[in-house]
């Protein structure tokens, strides 16, 4: 069995010894299967309908089933699409879009950037968060452990946590939040059935944020609620305790130096 190496974004690969990329698109030589290997995905090709013929039904025998499907991947992801969640496509420039298992969580501030795979090893978030706060309690070094803050949004049924260390600037953070909470603004939670929100198709959180329907605020060390974006990023990460996406109307009166604490009420 031979394994091919993908070429991967080098920064994603970093210093993890022993992690090998695998090419999942069938380029490895599977001796146990009939020899119709999947051809190299090298360019956009038209849909081969016959090749997508699928069969339904139990196989006749335990022999290797005929590999009759011939899949070519189309439409590589647009290069500038920001993917801050699960997988980032590993671009193999010679052969279109293949998927590797390496994922990135935004850009990593940690000094020895390790390739981080989402959800691996399979440890519950609760345990991860708990152990993380254990280790940061035990270290005297500032800024190496993750920095989790809770993010809530007016009208969203529940809150999220983000690790501020995984972002380098406000832009990153805001894109990530946009992705995280877009499902709420689009009213798709269908949470309470009949009295769910109206669906706002095509409207993105970003537009809402820029149209000032929602603003991003944070609670600092002193318990004051401030608008995000006015202090340098480093100072922000040090003083931010909580984030909140508020309705614009609720944030009237909040200025960069405002000291009014807004109530977090449903």
């Amino acid at each position: 069995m031979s394994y091919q190496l993908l070429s991967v974004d080098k920064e994603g690969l970093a210093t993890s010894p022993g992690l090998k990329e695998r090419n999942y698109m069938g380029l490895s030589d599977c001796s146990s299967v009939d020899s119709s290997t999947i051809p190299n995905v090298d360019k956009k090709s038209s849909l081969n309908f016959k090749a997508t013929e699928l069969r339904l039904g139990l196989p006749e025998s335990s022999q290797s089933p005929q590999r009759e499907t011939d899949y070519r991947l189309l439409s590589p992801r647009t290069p500038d699409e920001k993917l801050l969640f699960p997988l980032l496509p590993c671009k193999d420039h010679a052969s279109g879009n293949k998927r590797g298992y390496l994922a990135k969580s935004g850009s990593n501030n940690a000094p020895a950037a390790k390739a981080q795979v989402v959800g691996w090893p399979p440890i519950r978030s609760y345990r991860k968060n708990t152990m993380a706060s254990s280790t940061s309690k035990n270290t005297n070094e500032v800024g190496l452990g993750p920095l989790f803050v809770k993010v809530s949004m007016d009208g969203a049924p529940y809150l999220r946590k983000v690790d501020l260390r995984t972002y380098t600037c406000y832009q990153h953070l805001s894109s990530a939040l946009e992705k995280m909470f877009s499902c709420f603004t689009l009213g798709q939670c269908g949470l309470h059935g009949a009295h769910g929100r109206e669906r706002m198709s095509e409207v993105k959180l970003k537009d809402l944020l820029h149209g000032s329907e929602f603003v991003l605020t944070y609670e600092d060390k002193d318990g004051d609620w401030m608008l995000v974006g006015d202090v340098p990023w480093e100072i922000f990460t040090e003083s931010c305790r909580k984030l909140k996406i508020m309705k614009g109307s609720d944030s009237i009166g909040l200025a960069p130096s405002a000291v009014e604490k807004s109530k977090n009420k449903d």
Partner: protein
Amino acid sequence: MDLRLPSKVLEHILSFVDSNEDRNSVSLVCKSWFETERRTRKRVIVRNCYAVTPEAVARRFPEMRSLTLKGKPHFADYNLVPDGWGGYAWPWIEAMAEKCPSLEELRLKRMVVTDECLEKIAASFKDFKVLVLTSCEGFSTDGLAAIAVACSNLRELELRECIVEDLGGDWLSYFPETLTSLVSLDFSCLDSEVKLSDLERLVSRSPNLKSLKLNRAVSLDALGSLLRLAPQLVELGTGSFSDKLDQEAVSKLSQAFSEMKELKSLSGLWDVLPEYIPLLYSVCPGLTSLNLSYATVQMPDLLELLTRCSNLQKLWVMDLIEDKGLEVVASSCKELRELRVFPSGAEGLNDTNVAMTEQGLVSVSEGCPNLESVLYFCVQFTNAAMVTIARNRPNLKCFRLCVMEPFAPDHKTQKPLDEGFKAIVERCKDLQRLSVSGLLTDKAFEYIGTHGKKLRMLSIAFAGDSDLMLHHLLSGCESLNKLEIRDCPFGDTALVANAAKLETMRSLWMSSCCVSFGACKLLSQKMPKLNVEVIDEHPLETRPDSSPVERIYIYRTLAGPRLDMPEFVWTIQKNPEIGVSHLAIK
């Protein structure tokens, strides 16, 4: 002559039938048995909240007193299910409030529970007694206050590893002075400090209190006074075990522990300092369950503790225990049934530099004849070790091995771990749950398909070479109920060829595999009793049939397509105009 058993007699007989499996069989005998059974069933368990509607359940079991629900798929625990996917408790609570107001117990796992839900529970169920939330999220401590203040007969309130918006510790103070029925309280996952005096008063007016699991914010000093108020505890989860106490406080605490004659289960022990471990010696011989998985204590400080736990049946630790510690477990804990070893490194991978290898598990398999359930995180493993473990412990029911480095081969022979897992499935004929890891080829799955006849749940990551892997599993594992797969290089052929199998299973999860959109559509069309959900956070503008999907979650259901799908979940119902003209079906 009417040979039918009078329903009153049948009812009486059924009152002795507790197992739902048996009751399900009873309900299949004939219509009248179905009717009698359904009207007498008190405890209802729905393991996939989307498999059936709340209304249907309420209609069928009007005398329901206890409802257990599970929502999100298991891989949600590892952040593989995007937020907003679903699993909402509200529709169930609303339906039960209307149709089963005598409901007393609610146990929810991996569901989204809001404060509104909790308020509704508090307002609707007059005799509400038990609320257990496991891995749930969406509510705040305000919701807890609502439960505390209104449920005057509350017996159990347990929050197990929930993500709660913690607005402070006042919620505890809402338990009225008249509440004396508390049997179990678990708030270990909350951050905020509760008022100690309120907690003490609550404990002292709860003579039936058997289980108390504190959060980290409860200090060691506070623990002492609580233990003195509740020496009858059977289960204890301590708070932080690291304050600096003076000599007098230490000896008082030691005294308090030694008074606890009933204690069987111990957990918490956050940040435990080695010098406090001797405080626990007096309770060790009575312990059947010990959870040290948050106790960052190293060897050899653990040794004395472990040697004293001769009756231990369940042990959860971190890999700080090392091979040496597991050897001590093997020689001291002869009653051990369940062992879980978690990684101590913050990221798990490449962070561990502890001396724990496959040898630790081998020792335990040799020394503990009743060992039947294993969860073991390890950096690397060998086939030989698994062969030995299988030989030692053919009675294994649950074997979850997580070799943390993806694709790691046998570190001695550099071969895939196929032979090791083969030994496990071949020897352990009663194996019901298996998680595989490390370097695995299709052969491993051929073995699993051939031998894993009792296997109900299987978890796979970064494994296999081709569709054959999935095909072996779906066609071979007769008892397969839940299959979850991530990052494996196959999809359509095996899935489509074994579509009928999917109706015999509770669910199938595949993420980062090579399942095409076309296959999903085909499956949806051909298998109307399944919900086929394509979960794509980054869908392409147009979705050609050959494009791979990020995640697919398939489950059987009587409820049809669900109504609360977010935008990133696609099912065929969303696109009724998709035709089959270009897909040949045989």
